[in-house]
């Protein structure tokens, strides 16, 4: 009796294992997506809860399952600290059976997590950070830089301002990978177009008192004050520049503004500013439909990173479906073969260095008179075609690029 019971248990477990073995294309029987975002700090408006909801929406719209396995979304707060982000990513990959990490607002965190992803051979998709390292020295088959990057911002806003006649520049730069990388890219564009960089003042993340930095910018007598920061930092810098009268003789160029920043500044203060964004909620019916659903869940309009969180999660899940497995190398190959046409972009593709290539747009903030209602903030100035919006492969320092 006892023996037969043991036999039955053994047989059952062999069958059970055999059964999972036959369909074990999905590791741990779950496709788990981690959203590593700033949930509480200065960038929580740009990523935060909105990013988590965007990824959840994608998982739900995909049907909740892929290859018959559940899609699970988890999230964590990286506190804008690279060590916290990297430790969380490591833990997720080691023990949390997380297959892909999305959002990654904050360039410092994104860089640290990119290194972990490369080591652990798991996927990350960067939507909230701009640092060029993701597709250059830190590139791997497992990292995709999706929404925008410093090059595209520099060749959008930076170039447009230089072409309008802003030849001498002074930067107010946030002192970490994001600001420094952006300043570097814009400086290149300025010099290439015959301009001159007069200097830069570097301030820590989440600075509230910009007075000394603005005074330096005024003393430089540069025509353009380039604000190489974003979120609350950019809002505070722009406000301080106006209060100190810098805007009388000098022009501001905000190098990365989000729709939330325009919302925070208010149209009277922000009107006329140029900004480079990959996406705006009021572009066409698809974007408006997504924005409406997002607004119902989150209570505000989505920005380009949140739209990209949704779009890139869809791309990842489609790649898992097409590959028939969540094995990272197979998924990586599929993602680099497929074309993305959805509410985020048309005919977007992932290059070998991990750069997702798509059209970017230059926008101008509307005047209060032009705006017809809440969140109606931007009008399109021009389209930056995909092939001009991103760093040419020939300039890439990525070792996956064959030269």
């Amino acid at each position, binding site marked *: 009796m006892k023996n037969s019971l043991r036999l039955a248990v053994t047989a059952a477990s062999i069958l059970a294992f055999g059964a999972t073995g036959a369909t074990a294309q999905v590791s741990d029987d779950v496709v788990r997506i981690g959203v590593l975002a700033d*949930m*509480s700090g200065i960038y929580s408006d740009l990523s935060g809860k909105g990013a988590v909801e965007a990824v959840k929406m994608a998982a739900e719209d995909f049907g909740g399952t892929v290859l018959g396995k559940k899609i699970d979304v988890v999230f*964590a*707060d990286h506190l804008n*600290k*690279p*060590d*916290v982000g*990297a*430790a969380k990513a*490591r*833990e997720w990959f*080691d*023990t949390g059976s997380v297959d892909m990490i999305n959002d990654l607002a904050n*360039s*410092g965190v994104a*860089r*640290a997590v990119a*290194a*972990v992803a490369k*080591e652990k051979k798991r996927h990350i998709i960067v939507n909230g950070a701009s640092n060029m390292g993701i597709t250059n020295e830190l590139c791997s088959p497992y990292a995709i830089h999706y929404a925008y990057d410093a090059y595209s911002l520099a060749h959008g806003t930076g170039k447009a301002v230089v072409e309008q006649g802003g030849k001498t520049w002074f930067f107010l730069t946030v*002192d*970490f*990978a994001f600001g420094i990388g952006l300043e570097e890219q814009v400086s290149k564009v300025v010099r290439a177009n015959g301009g001159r960089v007069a200097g830069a003042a570097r301030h*820590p*993340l989440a600075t509230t008192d910009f007075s000394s930095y603005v005074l330096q910018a005024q003393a430089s007598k540069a025509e353009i004050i380039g604000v190489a920061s974003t979120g609350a930092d950019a809002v505070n810098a722009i406000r301080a520049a106006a209060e100190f009268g810098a805007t009388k003789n000098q022009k501001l160029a905000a190098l990365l503004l989000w729709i939330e920043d325009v919302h925070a500044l208010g149209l009277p203060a922000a009107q006329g500013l140029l900004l480079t964004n990959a996406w705006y909620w009021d572009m066409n019916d698809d974007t408006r439909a997504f924005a409406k659903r997002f607004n119902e869940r989150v209570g505000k309009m989505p920005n380009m990173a949140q739209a990209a969180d949704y779009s890139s999660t869809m791309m990842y899940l489609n790649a898992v479906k097409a590959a028939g497995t969540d094995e990272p190398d197979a998924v990586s190959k599929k993602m680099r073969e497929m074309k993305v046409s959805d509410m985020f972009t048309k005919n977007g593709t992932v290059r070998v260095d991990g750069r997702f290539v798509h059209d970017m747009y230059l926008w101008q903030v509307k005047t209060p008179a032009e705006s017809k209602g809440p969140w109606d903030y931007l009008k399109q100035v021009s389209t930056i075609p995909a092939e001009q919006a991103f760093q040419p492969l020939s300039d890439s320092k990525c070792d996956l690029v064959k030269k």
Partner: protein
Amino acid sequence: MLSFPVSLRVSPAMKRGFFLVLLALLLAAPFFPQIIYPIFLMKMMCFALFACAFNLLLGHAGIVSFGHAAFFGGSAYITGYALRDLGWSTELAILAGVLFTTILGAAFGVLAIRRQGIYLAMITLALAQMVYFTFLQSSFTGAEDGMQPIPRGHLFGLVDLSDDSRLYFLVLACVIGGLWLVNRIVNSPFGEVLRAIREHEPRARSMGYAVDRYKIIAFALSAGLSGLAGSLKCVVFRLAALTDVHWHMSGDVILMTLLGGMNSVFGPAIGAVLISLLRHYFDALGAWVTVVIGIIFILCVLVFRRGVLGEINHLLSRRPATAVRPSKEEQNAQI
């Protein structure tokens, strides 16, 4: 001879048995990653060593340092630099970090011990902020982005440490070695002199002890061992970041020490484990973790001021006289 205010009336055999069981559990842990995450365990061990090293000053010499993050994080940066930019083997890189912080600790000591109490604490804080700013501005540290990725390197140029379980045993060995050293220092004649200075400095001086020299050596030893903990953490996470040199870390280690019990050798380790567990498992609470830890700290200070291990020791020592009275030597050789 001075004795501790609390004592553990448990036979040495029981103590030894407890340590052996703990050691066996720690040795077995990396083979069961589904129960406890080895990297988290390594992090806890680093903090345990850090807190015990810090307590050399606070608990045993009565010196409140508010600048220990400079040693913990500073060592991480030096080790990271040696591993990433100089390509040294892991043990040399860790040694470099420890050596750097030992010297730094002695330098802190020379300046800080000229004053006492709050002034001493403020001097250590000021010095630590200078160290913080130096690392923030140095080009090799990557400032806000952290220094990364740091290779884990090869032990003695031979053993590849990128494998988590190999690294685990290195960390375990280093932490046990470090804790053994802390225990040895506390229970040595040197430790006695430190406690004598803590209790009554003029008397210790009148007995002919070179008080200043003792304090400086205590500073250097505490800093060096804190540095060992910081270096190990840097190797584990392959990253050195400003968090570890920030003054928050100096505050955290005081919290760990007080929570665990400063009148013991290994109490701070328990505090470190508790705080790490709280941070880890209450992660979902987000910013509220700070509130939870704050409430626990207030409770600790109001209700069980001896700390967790201190209270346990106290309870055990109040047991009826059936327990064996410890000899004086045992009284000093606290758990």
